């Protein structure tokens, strides 16, 4: 008996290709999808360079040097923005490129007069939108290393000059415990030579930099001169505590380079990032609920209710439009509930962005309603719709950023994601809540979402005519 029941189960499964598809094909498809996203987007660096834009209205040499240093790093894709010529243009460029997600990080060389303390210069602003915290850490580390090396080079050059010309009046000479004397001169030479080879990890000059930091020549100019001077048996220069001189001066120099980390989006908002997550989750569930509601069309067809409706005064256009309208309104309410909750609990400043929210909610709901109707009219049965919608919605959500933030994806995956409603909706809500841009900036998102709504809605109507003219 048990085997008979088992046989019934197996036969049912074998006679149901859709169920087989859901059991065996869909998991493999999703595995492949996520494998693509993770193998080319998150887990490896091969395809995912940090995109850095250098904004320098003053066209300074420093910016060019920074660009060069960043270019030498394999993990960075640096772009020197040369067309920005004044501060106003720079501000506009920063806002625009952030909202378009052109760069992971912007490095802006601030003009001298911006500094309140004239003695501190240059000032570098690292402008992030918070989407890629790794980008900030990496670039900050590279730039600090760059300025350290620059300072060390400058100081050593100065020391070299001082060593070669002798002490000047006013030079403060310190006696080091390792000060040269005939007794310790030779061992000290050895020390200096070996110091250039066997650097200690905790030495700021000798610590092995990470791979992404460009390598420079060891800073041994002053030391070699000292050795050569001793070999030539010239009158020894005034002894100088080299270690102390280098360490203290370099520290002073690097302190003078002011790094300012700017996150314009979080300056006047408490928790704007939550809005993006709310949008991602809302669109995912909106797609599910929309297809669930659109499925009533198939249920009504199977039950004969559609026949009764179509034999009444209502035509097919009324049926399709009525269902679309219900799904649209329900979608608007669903998103509103989600964002109201986010406002209540996380304070996303919903009421400050109400026009943008309404526009995005309307266009997103319209697009998802049409998409759901399209799937329903395309399917021949409820079971077929279930299989199709699960496959489509999960794929769209994975690619479009509802499951994995899009900024973590490779550029290729981001491009593919543009074929999903999720991506456009999330981008739009992000512009509204995160970048706080005006409604005009949502033009592209609205065109795409509303255009899709019109096209898919029309196709739904065309497909639904099979019920009328069978």
């Amino acid at each position, binding site marked *: 008996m048990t085997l008979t029941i088992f046989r019934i189960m197996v036969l049912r499964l074998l006679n149901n290709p859709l169920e087989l598809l859901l059991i065996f094909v869909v998991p493999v498809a999703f595995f492949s999808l996520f494998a693509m996203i993770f193998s080319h987007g998150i887990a490896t660096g091969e395809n995912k360079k940090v995109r850095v834009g250098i904004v320098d209205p003053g066209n300074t040499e420093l910016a060019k040097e920074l660009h060069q240093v960043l270019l030498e790093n394999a993990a960075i894709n640096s772009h020197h923005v040369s067309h920005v010529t004044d501060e106003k243009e720079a501000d506009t460029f920063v806002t625009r490129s952030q909202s378009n997600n052109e760069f992971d990080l912007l490095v802006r060389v601030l003009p001298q007069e911006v500094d309140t303390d004239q003695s501190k210069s240059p000032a570098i602003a690292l402008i992030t939108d918070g989407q890629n915290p790794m980008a900030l850490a990496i670039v900050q580390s590279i730039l600090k290393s760059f300025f350290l090396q620059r300072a060390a080079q400058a100081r050593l050059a100065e020391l070299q000059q001082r060593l070669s010309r002798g002490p000047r009046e006013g030079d403060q000479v310190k006696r080091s415990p390792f000060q040269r004397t005939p007794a310790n001169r030779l061992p000290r030479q050895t020390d200096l030579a070996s110091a250039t080879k066997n650097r200690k990890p905790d030495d700021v000059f000798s610590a092995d930099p990470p791979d992404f930091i460009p390598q420079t020549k060891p800073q041994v100019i002053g030391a070699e001169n000292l050795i050569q001077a001793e070999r030539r048996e010239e009158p020894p220069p005034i002894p100088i505590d080299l270690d102390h001189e280098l360490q203290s001066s370099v520290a002073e120099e690097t302190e003078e380079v002011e790094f300012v980390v700017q996150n314009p989006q979080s300056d006047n908002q408490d928790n704007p990032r939550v809005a993006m997550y709310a949008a991602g989750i809302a669109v995912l569930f909106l797609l599910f609920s929309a297809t669930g509601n659109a499925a009533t069309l198939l249920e009504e067809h199977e*039950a*004969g*209710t559609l*026949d*009764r*409706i*179509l*034999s*009444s*005064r*209502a035509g097919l256009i009324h049926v399709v439009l009525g269902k679309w309208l219900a799904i649209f309104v329900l979608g608007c309410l669903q998103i509103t509930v989600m964002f109201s909750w986010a406002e209540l609990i996380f304070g996303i400043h919903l009421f400050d962005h109400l026009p943008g929210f309404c526009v995005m909610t309307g266009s997103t709901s319209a697009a998802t309603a049409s998409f759901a109707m399209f799937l329903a009219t395309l399917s021949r049965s409820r079971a077929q719709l279930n299989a199709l919608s699960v496959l489509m919605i999960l794929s769209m959500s994975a690619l479009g950023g509802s499951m994995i933030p899009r900024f973590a994806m490779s550029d290729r995956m981001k491009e593919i994601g543009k074929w999903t409603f999720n991506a456009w909706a999330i981008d739009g809500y992000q512009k509204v809540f995160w970048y706080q841009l005006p409604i005009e900036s949502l033009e592209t998102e609205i065109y795409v979402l509303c255009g899709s709504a019109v096209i898919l809605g029309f196709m739904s109507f065309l497909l639904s005519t099979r019920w*009328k*003219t*069978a």
Partner: protein
Amino acid sequence: MTGERQPLLSLIDVRKSYRGRQALQGVSLELYSGELLGFFGPNGAGKTTMIRCIGGLLRPDSGRIDLHHHNQVPSRLGLVPQSLAIYPDLTVEQNLAVFGKLEGVPRRELSARISDVLNWAALTERRRSLTKTLSGGMQRRLNIACSVLHQPNVLLLDEPTVGVDPQSRERIYDMIRDLADQGSAVLLTTHQLDEVETRCDRIVIMDHGLIVASGTLSDLIGRSIGKPHRVTLQFDRPYPNEAEAFEFDESRMIACCAFDTLRELPGILAVLNSLDIEPTQIDVQGVGLQDVFLEMTGRTLRE
């Protein structure tokens, strides 16, 4: 009954085919006010296709379907699908309201019409119940009630009594008869022979997409078997000779004799005395629609 009245609905040489298979092969029919027409035929005969064509759900390949004016007012059509075409998650009243609006019942009249129809279908007490909580018979009644809110002149019912108990069936036919008595033309399809025999004013037998016979039961009997009564004899082995007034089937183990009036019965039974073999069973019965139907459509299974 059809007399000189003008038909409310007429079909003229209606044809419809699906992928090369002829579902309707030139159906012509007229339906009159106050008439209850029973459509009868084997599975796949084309009954549902014809109803869907009349209801506007299918477009015929050729022919005409005309819904005529009744008292200078265009006739209204009501369709009761074979399945329960109602919303199970709505209450009885809500179902009636939405279908009333879809049929264009004016808002000011809707409430009164709903009350009338609830009363007519004996569902007033359950008006606020969810439809899915109703019994099968109640759901069937609601299914019909939803189609009469707009007071149609022509009502099409596709197997309205499938799966209901005898009490509910009686109630449903009472409802249908009410509508016919009020002047509506009712066309129903069914497989229930007794329903057609006893309830319908006129019977149409359909087979292979064609109307093979139409008329009252006595008309059909007259045109097929010829006489309304019959004596049937059964033998335990093939009867070797002929028997006066009786006709044998191919096996020669069953013999039949049709007659017009019961007064002829003693004369027919007298023949039994002269039979070479004694029959094992003798049946005297009236000819029914099943006999007519099998006579006209044969005994071959249809799918």
